[in-house]
């Protein structure tokens, strides 16, 4: 597939844009429609497009397979460790405002306490899941 000029050029320009849009959706999850699941899916789809156009070899050159497998557990781990903040503050697991965290001004990027942090973990988890499912299924074929 390396010889298709149109496909290569379009993918080279589109994949970074899709990734950027996914990051935007993730980090605006507490301000506008979106969030970890939607943004993570967008990033995962960008990775699927990349591996469709440039092949599995180029994908693994960018993100090694072992790293991908390792990153699978990062999302839930990030989420659970963030939940421990409430435990160390003396209130319940996954507490946000009750843990005494400053919620900030509603509508600004750094607001809503731990919600953007958790959204980041969910986004990582979903993006890695979409990527690894596609990559492993293609590889096993």
């Amino acid at each position, binding site marked *: 597939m390396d010889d298709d000029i149109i496909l290569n050029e379009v993918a080279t320009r589109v994949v970074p844009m899709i990734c950027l849009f996914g990051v935007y959706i993730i980090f605006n*999850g*507490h*301000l*506008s*429609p*979106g*969030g970890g699941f939607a943004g993570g899916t967008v990033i995962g789809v960008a990775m699927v497009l990349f591996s469709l156009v440039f092949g599995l070899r180029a994908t693994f050159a960018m993100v090694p397979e072992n790293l991908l*497998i390792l990153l*699978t*557990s990062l*999302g*839930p781990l990030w*989420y*659970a460790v963030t*939940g421990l903040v409430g435990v160390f503050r003396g209130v319940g*697991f*996954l507490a*946000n*405002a009750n843990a005494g965290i400053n*919620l*900030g001004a*509603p*509508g600004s990027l750094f*607001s*809503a*306490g731990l*919600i953007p942090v*958790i*959204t980041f*973990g*969910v986004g990582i*988890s*979903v993006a*890695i*899941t979409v990527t*690894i*499912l596609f990559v*492993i*299924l293609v*590889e*096993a074929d």
Partner: protein
Amino acid sequence: MKPRHLMLLALPLVLVIALPMLMVVATMPTYGEVNPTFNYVIEHYNAHALEETGATNVVTGIILDYRAYDTLIETTVLFTGTIGVLLALKSVPRRRGDLSGRRHNP
């Protein structure tokens, strides 16, 4: 045990599982009914989500603050699915002394 006997065993099991579900469905409000017993949570979320979670997106405020446990388990569902696919499709290179006799892809 013959398959026929297994089916006889399955019948009480289905009844035990299905009866509580049907009882739950029976207590659900009819569609469109304004019953305060089932609506106070929605009203509380609509009125207090912004001040209690700080998120202008109320949906995010609900799923990541009020229902954070639910979303955590949802994330582990994704994790479990990935691990299942990896276990089923990814062959681990075996050591030389392994006598299990299984072939593996290089």
